[in-house]
């Protein structure tokens, strides 16, 4: 009867239509276009929750699983377990409800099954109506080498803070990476979230920093092991050879200061003039500080950088790598100290292993890596890491001369504890001073066999219960390095 008001009602209908269209567009934006970024938010518990309910792939070292998921009967379907616990914890990291570290973090996409390379597998799982499974990650780590490092730590007793790395020089494959004190990732992966949180808080408060992967996250003065870098620079830039004569005195007055540098125990290096080989054998500070003064600031730094110093993130498949440092600006006295690995020179054990590996590989430093292959749950290979060069640190000739000198160190110098019967071993010890109250750090780096290198290692003993007077790179770190090299050569 009345058609009045119909016009505004039609206008109102259009207005309501607009309201509902706006709602639908916004919901589509939120659930479709924005969903990726919201799912990637680390605070999004749902993603973790789902990850806990899915069969996550295994992490393998050789044929052994060092992390895998087993069915569980509590609020989540699967329990992450780490059969080797603390030994592999620096590599595997942990997979807790609240966070992930190590390989669990860096390879999360593959392990969780979300990686695009697993798309076909996911599709098949969907069709078969089976629960989707994550892919596996195979590490480059050789369990025998890893065991050698871990058992070596055990022999040094409790209270030890140490790290060890082994690399295959020709490829950059990391054969072992151990750090102590370590932690048990099983406790953090516990489905009892209160217990897991409590354990995590305890680890965080622990003064010995068990969550730290000292092999890649601790940088300390490399001490006498850095003399390898100084020697390399001397050969490359000053044309020196193992037989070149160097300063053999027991002390050296540093220019521009009143400071006098002494050899260890204030002994002479065996004469006023000694060969560079002899100087390295005895690890004479005066000789290499003197070489450091002859080199320019830039030459020494450039050589260090070619081995990997000041390069961040060459280890791309493990998170949290610390950058090894060579100081930026140096006055001559500080340059002399830097040349013997003191002052502000700081290196990770991995970095020192790369110095040896570079020398072993005829001067070419390979990019280190720890993930060998990525496979689907059915073991189809999805990806295989190809070795790549990081840089050429020295010429093949220099590498040969350095090898010769390092072999002498193990044969008759400070490195004798690393001797392996019937095998030529090259090495260099280091005992870095820190503050007066602290015991020095003990280092060993080297490779074997010297004539056909299969493994390069670096061992750092940051602190131990050993008497201060007995701390020396060769004695503390040498046997661990030896055991690791033997595990490769005489399996």
């Amino acid at each position, binding site marked *: 009867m009345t058609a009045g008001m119909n016009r505004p*009602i039609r206008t109102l209908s259009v207005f309501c239509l607009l309201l509902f269209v706006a709602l639908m567009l916004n919901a589509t934006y939120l*659930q479709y276009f924005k969903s990726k970024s919201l799912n990637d938010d680390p605070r999004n518990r749902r993603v973790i929750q789902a990850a806990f309910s899915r069969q996550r792939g295994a992490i393998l070292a050789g044929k052994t699983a060092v992390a895998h998921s087993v069915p569980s009967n509590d609020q989540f379907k699967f329990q992450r377990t780490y059969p080797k616990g603390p030994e592999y914890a620096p590599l595997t990291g942990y997979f807790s409800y609240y966070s992930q570290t190590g390989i669990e973090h860096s390879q999360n996409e593959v392990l969780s099954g979300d990686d695009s390379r697993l798309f076909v597998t996911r599709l098949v799982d969907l069709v078969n109506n089976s629960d989707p499974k994550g892919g596996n990650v195979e590490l480059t780590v050789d369990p025998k080498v890893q065991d050698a490092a871990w058992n070596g730590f055990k022999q040094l007793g409790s209270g030890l803070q140490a790290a060890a790395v082994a690399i295959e020089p020709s490829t950059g494959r990391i054969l072992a990476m151990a750090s102590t004190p370590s932690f048990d990732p099983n406790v953090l992966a516990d489905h009892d979230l209160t217990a897991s949180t409590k354990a995590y808080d305890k680890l965080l408060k622990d003064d010995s920093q068990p969550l730290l992967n000292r092999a890649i996250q601790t940088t300390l003065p490399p001490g006498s092991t850095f003399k390898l870098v100084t020697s390399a620079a001397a050969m490359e830039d000053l044309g020196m050879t193992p037989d070149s004569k160097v300063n053999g005195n027991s002390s050296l007055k540093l220019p521009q200061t009143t400071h006098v540098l002494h050899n260890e125990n204030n002994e002479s290096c065996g004469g006023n003039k000694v060969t560079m080989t002899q100087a390295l054998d005895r690890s004479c500070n005066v000789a290499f500080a003197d070489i450091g003064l002859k080199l320019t600031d830039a030459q020494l730094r450039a050589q260090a950088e070619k081995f990997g110093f000041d390069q961040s993130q060459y280890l791309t498949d493990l998170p949290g790598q610390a950058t090894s440092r060579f100081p930026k600006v140096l006055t001559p006295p500080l340059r002399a100290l830097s040349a013997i690995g003191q002052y502000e020179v700081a290196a990770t054990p991995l970095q020192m292993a790369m110095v040896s590996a570079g020398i072993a590989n005829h001067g070419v430093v390979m990019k280190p890596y720890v993930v060998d292959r990525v496979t689907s749950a059915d073991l189809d290979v999805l990806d295989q890491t190809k070795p790549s060069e990081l840089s050429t640190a020295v010429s093949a000739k220099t590498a040969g001369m350095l090898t010769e000198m390092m072999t002498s160190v193990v044969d008759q110098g400070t490195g004798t504890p690393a001797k392996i019967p019937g095998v030529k071993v090259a090495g260099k010890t280091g005992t870095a001073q820190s503050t007066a109250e602290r015991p020095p750090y003990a280092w060993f780096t080297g490779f074997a066999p010297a004539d056909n290198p299969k493994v390069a290692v670096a061992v750092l003993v940051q602190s131990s219960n050993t008497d201060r007077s007995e701390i020396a790179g060769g004695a503390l770190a040498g046997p661990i390095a030896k055991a690791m090299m033997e595990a490769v050569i005489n399996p």
Partner: protein
Amino acid sequence: MSAQTWAREFVHRQRRGAELFLLILSLVVGIGGYAAVGIGVEQKVPADIVGYGGWLAVLIIGAHIVVRFVAPYADPVLLPLVAMLNGLGLAVIRRLDLAAGATQNDGFAKQQLIWMTLGVVLFAGTLIGLRDHRIMQRFTYTSGLAAVVLLLLPMLPGIGKDINGARIWIHVGPLSFQPGELAKVLLVIAFAGYLVLHRDALALAGRRVAGIDLPRGRDLGPILAMWLISLMILVRQSDLGSSLLFFGLFVIMLYVATERRGWIIVGGGLFLVGAVAAAKLISHVSARVDIWLHPFNHYQTTAGPHSDQLVESMFGMAWGGLLGRGFGNGSPYRISYANSDFIIGAIGEELGLATVLAVILCYGLIVERGLRTAIICRDDFGKLLSVGLASSFALQVFVVVGGVTRLIPLTGLTTPFLSYGGSSLVANWVIVALLLRISDQARRPLPDLSFSASDEATQVVKLP
């Protein structure tokens, strides 16, 4: 004979068979959803599926039978839409109950089913008792007064209670009720009744100021006073959602009644001024705006306003994606109050964007059927009443769904028929009964109407 030829153009069929068919589909959603919740969460069909399904079926088929007898020409789509949404809401509430560890005989779903029963009884009662919607026009002022009283009730000491910062509840013994929900219906009736009588005066008499025709004070006065009173109460009770809803309803109905666009400009302007002032002056409101603009800055914060509810809902909806995780495979319980204001978040997570769009579409259809009823309605009061009721759904859904999906700042309102909440559910069932009553009148063939309508039109005029 002439009536018949006239009717041939306009006649609406009863379409009760179509309604029954759609109702069976809605039962499939409701009962199927309940079964899917059991299978998804507990890996078994719920033990009480027959009892539950039977109850739901009796309610819905019962409602259908009532409509068939007392409102045979009523719109055939409204009831199935409402039944579907109510059934889906029950299933989702049940799913959240299970997450909270409730058993079959307690939990919110059970209570909601009881409220739904009450809602359907009132729905039937309204349809049976109210044979002609125009009778309500007699109660214009009574409704308005009742609405104001209802809105004031929660502020009375003793029965009123603060819940989550809003004082909108009354408690009498074990029962709690949100009188604002009922007040919403009464206010729409009062607005409609008043505007029908004064629309000509409002539209035509008055001065023109700055291009806008302003009505005379005595025409606008009473309704403005009623609106201001209700708004002041709401602001004092910090119930932002309802304030927004009432304001919107008032402007829309005024615009439709007077057919003057000026009201939209005046209303929109007033709204903007009010919104900006509230955001600046009222800390409660400015916190909401801040959360809306920067939800992630306020996520899991220990001090100040926190946006956990909104962010969890957004995480959930993103996690649900296009098709959802499926019942039992999401974590909708991470959203606090997921079963009331944030039920859309729970649906988005486990049933996906597809279901969210379907639900929004259902609301859109409810509004569309309501407005269609208004267009074909033959009397002004019915027109305005159905405009008001349909708009109340449109605004309420926009405010709550828009708030949950971060289209607009969040203000608390229930999602009609889906959310847990007895007052809202019962009030909305009554609204649907009123819409069906009006649409029955509107769609009924004319011959019937020409006689009774003239009769009743006379009655209307006689009323105070």
